[in-house]
């Protein structure tokens, strides 16, 4: 963990780009590892948090729970989570996945709760009045209306998880963090280059989900 602190020069960014070009295969491999870890964590996070958030929102129950989950989630430093994961699960793929799942759950849970909870009660009442079952109300009325907010939560979780998966390298998680924590070997240019790749990954994922967010957002109705 000794930092040799290469002299920073404006040329560092040029060197960083050169590092990326020269090691593109290696970096792509690491980016693949990081993406694999992140996707596993987000996937598991979705399975846990999405149904729970939607159901609680539908029942308008557990406001305190939903709010506390997001508060407590924010208070858990990622490095602490990863260290805890390492102690509990031992070195491997799952220690980091578990830590990142804990990070992914709060934004997804809280946003899906508030998305469904905030749907106009008149609309929900009207849907019930038309004879829709509770299930239909949730899937055909509340979910489509709340979807933009739900996806916004998934977007936040994704940026969080991809950026934090870097730290997983400390606990044997692989990924681009392997370069970022190893300035002694790769130099500052390597650190900067690899972190540009992380930014690119996170930005790319955020962009994709942003497009999805836009696609599901209701378009303003043209008024006559």
């Amino acid at each position: 963990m000794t930092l040799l602190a290469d002299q920073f020069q404006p040329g560092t960014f040029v060197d960083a780009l050169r590092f990326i070009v020269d090691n593109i295969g290696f970096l792509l491999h690491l980016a693949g590892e990081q993406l694999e870890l992140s996707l596993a964590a987000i996937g598991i996070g979705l399975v846990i948090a999405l149904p729970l958030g939607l159901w609680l929102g539908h029942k308008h129950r557990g406001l305190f729970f939903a709010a506390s989950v997001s508060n407590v989630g924010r208070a858990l430093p990622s490095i602490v989570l990863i260290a805890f994961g390492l102690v509990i699960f031992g070195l491997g793929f799952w220690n980091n996945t578990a830590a990142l799942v804990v990070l992914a759950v709060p934004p997804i849970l809280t946003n899906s709760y508030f998305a469904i909870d905030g749907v106009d009660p008149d609309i929900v009442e009207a849907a019930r009045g038309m004879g829709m079952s509770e299930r239909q109300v949730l899937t055909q009325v509340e979910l489509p209306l709340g979807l933009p907010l739900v996806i916004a939560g998934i977007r936040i979780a994704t940026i969080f998880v991809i950026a934090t998966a870097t730290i997983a390298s400390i606990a044997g998680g692989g990924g681009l963090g392997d370069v970022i924590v190893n300035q002694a070997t790769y130099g500052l240019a390597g650190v900067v280059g690899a972190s540009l790749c992380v930014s690119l990954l996170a930005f790319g994922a955020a962009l994709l989900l942003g497009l999805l967010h836009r696609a599901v957002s209701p378009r303003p109705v043209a008024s006559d």
Partner: protein
Amino acid sequence: MIVASGPVIPNFGQGSHCEVTNGFFCPEWVRDHWHDTLEPALVQHIELALLAVVIGFAIAFVLALCGLRYRVLNGPIGYWADFLYTIPSLALFQLLVPVTGITVLTVEIALVSYTLLVLYRNMIEGLRSVPAEVIESARGSGFTRTQTFLRVELPLATPTIMAGVRIATVSTISIATVAAFVLPQGLGYPLFIALRQDVFKTEIFAAGALAVALALTADALLHLLERALTPWMRVRRA
């Protein structure tokens, strides 16, 4: 990978059975090392976070006042903030070291940058949500611009601003643990040491739990401050 650097358990040979065998949690280690390891780290952590939030608040406030007057600024500031959040903190700290050295300044620049985003957004949003009629009636009843701002707009924006302060504080406490990668200070430092010393479990749990407890305590205290600053909110809710 930092983990596999050999079995160096603190006090090897002199420690208790639990410490030597790296048991799940050894209370005696916490007792023995509270004063030389955990307490200083906790104090440093509080100092790092407090400084970052105070400076971040001051800068964000000035930026928000500019942003309110010149709306053109909002786009660029928003994009910059989005980009900043995708940079892994681990890399940002290292990036600054060659410029500012292994100093508190390095850590503070990174921490303050991260707080700005939340604080700025919430300040703008809070101040903008004050209804124009309210401002107009304050001006109509003889308040000067400054008075209107201090006595009407600012109090009405306080809940949103305080929500931002809470988020910024808690995330700063969280990110400050990573700062130990470049600066041997704060609760992240014992954590990194324990990770290198063959994953010494007690130290990891103790330092980690302290960091979480600190964040939750800060959040609770700020919540109380928010209630004290906005007594009218309680009346409305009752």
